[in-house]
């Protein structure tokens, strides 16, 4: 039996995933309207989700935010949803962090991330992979793989 390491060449890798029910987002929009949008999404995200497939896109972004929260692996700390933003680089979704979460990512040594979104008729999903810098104490001790 082996314990599979959670790092590559000393760089720790974190993964988060989540799935969101598109009807749930539709229901929240119907019940709370702009308050729901402004509490969860940034102005840029709201703008990006205009038009066709609006609700599916919002659901995918909500899933992305929850996926990022899981990648932080600190369940009992505050995660303001608007500090996690999905932007675009051409066709590719890109993760942007703001405020306290940007600071926390720096403390955890986040170096780069890759984000993938998808949706079907009923659900949207997101996966985020984060590569972190090697733990400095492990590097000093020569224990990083």
């Amino acid at each position: 039996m082996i314990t599979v390491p959670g790092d590559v060449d000393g760089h720790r890798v974190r993964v988060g995933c989540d799935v969101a029910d598109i009807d749930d987002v539709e229901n929240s929009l119907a019940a709370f309207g702009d308050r729901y949008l402004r509490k969860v999404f940034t102005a840029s995200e709201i703008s990006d989700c205009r038009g066709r497939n609006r609700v599916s896109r919002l659901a995918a972004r909500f899933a992305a935010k929850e996926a990022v929260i899981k990648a932080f692996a600190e369940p009992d700390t505050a995660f303001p949803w608007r500090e996690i933003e999905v932007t675009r680089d051409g066709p590719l979704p890109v993760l942007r962090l703001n405020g306290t979460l940007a600071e926390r990512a720096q403390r955890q040594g986040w170096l780069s991330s890759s984000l993938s979104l998808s949706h079907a008729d009923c659900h949207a999903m997101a996966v985020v992979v984060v590569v972190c810098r090697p733990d400095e104490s492990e590097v000093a001790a020569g224990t990083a793989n």
Partner: protein
Amino acid sequence: MMQDQIRDVLATHGRMAVDPREVDEQADLYDLGMTSHASVDVMLALEDAFDIEFPDEVLKKSTFASVHNIAQVVESLVKMPV
């Protein structure tokens, strides 16, 4: 009773598999079927019910994990000076 109002909000917006009016105040609401997205609706409905606003620092999973935890946070927000 604050807890009764909270349980009513959970019954309307928590999308749980059981009636939240009948669960123990310490029961884990996520274990009972509440999703992270449903907790957003619960938060917005609590803001309406108690005329409060949840600040960023309480937007954590544990805040919505039980009727007891929700009541503690709502009570602190209700008491905050405007």
